[in-house]
């Protein structure tokens, strides 16, 4: 290894890449502007849609209920429901989203209620459809109230206390400080984002520095210089690492800023409503993430960045052209996303086994670190194993550069 040569190659690649508009877009513009814009834009749209769905009256069809005018009238009187004329093709109406659900009131419902006989009200809905789901909970709430009212009346009629059917209450109290709750929620997303940004940041330069050079015919020029291939590989590798880490840091910083700005905006609006509610706890706390956690995440990401850079360089080097390299590299994104998403799922925990699965282990351990939990044994195991994988990948990459059938693939 000749560090002077490595530095020379690295600095040239850096200069070359910084003059390339495509690299600049993938390394700087996308992480700083597009990603947060996309996330917050999508978030805002989602919130708006949800709000609209909630504020809209639930359109429903009442089936039966001719002999239960009281219930029907109560349903009609509720401003949150819009009762549509009863039709036999209600299933189709629900499927076509013309109404959210249908409420079937059994014959003789009110009479049976008086007599104390058990009854079943059926709600026809469309599973997994958001508006239908909202409608179901609203109508269920209505009938729950009716049931409770009936129970209270019956108890009162027999001179029994209300506590008979409710012998005790269950109350929840949160001990996690609000910022930790934020850390947990964000902690789940951050590792995923880091992994994706780390990979996409490395992708473009890795292709440009290998298959791109082959395609433009500069690879052969470079190889006639008296520099050992290992030094060329390392120079290029450090450039890809730089791009990867820059993309990641920039996207994290811009995400962090957006969260702080968005959080304080939320906090301000929450404070107003808190005043109105007199003494309600501020709901808009800016999610707090332990700075040590962030540093820990960076440390853990480094070997993964090495792994990504080395694998991408080796794979892209095999290709003859830029296009070919893209078709090899694009499917890898799925391979990366799968374990990253798996790490966000609730049931998957950090164990000695999952600690050895690359990417998944990073996703899991970052979640822990960001919420302030440090499992030192796992951290050591993950760092060690990932460093080993990264080392193997880098050695493989150097090997590929030394293979003339790869470099001069015709």
């Amino acid at each position, binding site marked *: 290894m000749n560090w002077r040569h490595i530095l020379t190659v690295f600095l*040239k690649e850096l200069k070359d890449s910084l003059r390339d508009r495509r690299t600049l877009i993938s390394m700087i513009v996308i992480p700083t502007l597009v990603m947060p814009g996309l996330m917050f834009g999508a978030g805002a749209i989602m919130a708006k849609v949800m709000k609209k769905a909630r504020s809209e009256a639930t359109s429903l069809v009442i089936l039966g209920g001719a002999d239960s005018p009281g219930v029907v009238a109560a349903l009609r009187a509720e401003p949150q429901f819009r009762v549509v004329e009863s039709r036999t093709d209600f299933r189709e109406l629900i499927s076509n989203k013309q109404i959210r659900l249908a409420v079937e009131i059994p014959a003789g419902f009110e009479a049976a209620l008086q007599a104390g006989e058990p009854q079943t009200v059926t709600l026809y809905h469309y599973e997994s459809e958001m508006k239908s789901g909202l409608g179901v909970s609203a109508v269920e709430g209505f009938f729950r109230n009716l049931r409770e009212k009936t129970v209270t009346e019956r108890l009162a009629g027999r001179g029994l206390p209300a506590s008979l059917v409710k012998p005790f209450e269950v109350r929840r109290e949160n001990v996690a400080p609000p910022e930790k709750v934020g850390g947990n929620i964000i902690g789940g997303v951050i590792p995923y984002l880091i992994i994706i940004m780390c990979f996409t940041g490395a992708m473009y330069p890795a292709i440009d520095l290998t298959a791109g050079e082959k395609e*433009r015919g500069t690879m052969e*020029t470079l190889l*006639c210089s*008296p520099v050992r291939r290992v030094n060329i590989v390392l120079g290029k590798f450090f450039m890809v690492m730089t791009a990867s880490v820059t993309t990641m840091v920039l996207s994290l910083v811009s995400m962090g800023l957006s969260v702080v700005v968005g959080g304080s905006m939320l906090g301000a609006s929450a404070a107003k409503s808190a005043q109105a509610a007199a003494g309600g706890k501020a709901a808009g706390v800016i999610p707090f993430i332990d700075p040590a956690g962030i540093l820990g995440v960076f440390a853990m990401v480094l070997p993964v960045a090495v792994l990504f850079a080395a694998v991408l360089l080796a794979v892209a080097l095999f290709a003859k052209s830029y296009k070919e390299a893209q078709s090899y590299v694009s499917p890898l994104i799925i391979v990366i996303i799968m374990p990253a998403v798996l790490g966000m799922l609730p049931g998957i925990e950090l164990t000695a086994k999952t600690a050895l699965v690359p990417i998944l282990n990073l996703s899991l351990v970052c979640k822990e670190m960001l919420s302030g939990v440090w499992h030192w044994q796992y951290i050591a195991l993950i760092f060690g194993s990932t460093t080993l994988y990264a080392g193997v990948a880098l050695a493989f990459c150097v090997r590929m550069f030394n293979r003339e059938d790869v470099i001069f693939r*015709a």
Partner: protein
Amino acid sequence: MITARNLTKHFHDKKRGLIPAVEDVSFTCQPGRIYGLLGANGAGKTTTLRMLATLIQPTSGTATVAGHDVVADPVKVRAHVGFLAASTALYGRLTAREMIAYFGQLHDMDDAAIAARIRFLADELDMHEFLDRRCDKFSTGMKQKTSIARTLIHDPAVMIFDEPTLGLDVMTARAIVRFVRQCRDRGRTVIYSTHVMSEVEKLCDVIGIIHAGRLVAEGTLPQLQERYAETDMEEIFVKAVGGEAALAAALETKEGRV
């Protein structure tokens, strides 16, 4: 000085199996002389020159280039060789000066030496006008001049040219030929591959005819003319490779060879 001894290169191909690209080739190029390697497409010229430039390793046999063995000491060989081929392009996003300086740095030259050498080469090749412009905006002629300056930055003792005039316009091609002559006149060892007969006639002191990976004839132009009883280089070439039928057959089977 270049001494090739039984240079052999076989490639493995999944479909076609073992391909003998270069078979037992031996020759010597003397300083102050131009050795012309003449052959049809796919005859093994590029493979031979790539072995001499240590871009690829011989399967067997070896060569000594500027006093160093290509197998044992490839880095030292590259330090004394200037390699120019149609396939050695420039970095489009660098300026000519940056491009040349980059290779100077890779040759372990210090900044002062690089600056002085660039000044000298820019004078020689009349490059001052576009020295600080980016290579992707260059005309073919400007690109060739920059490439030449890149190969000469470390003042190599041996120059390897692999079809350097391929696809160039007449003016640029003539400039290249003039430059190759200058290299010879300055006492450099020059090896020059081409499939253009007239270039060989005009330029080369010694001619080696390569066919199907083998060196089938070698000598000065008068020697070859005498041996094949022909004055025209093309006729000599066809006779040396065993007639037109052999040439056509070789071209057919060797299609796509490196």
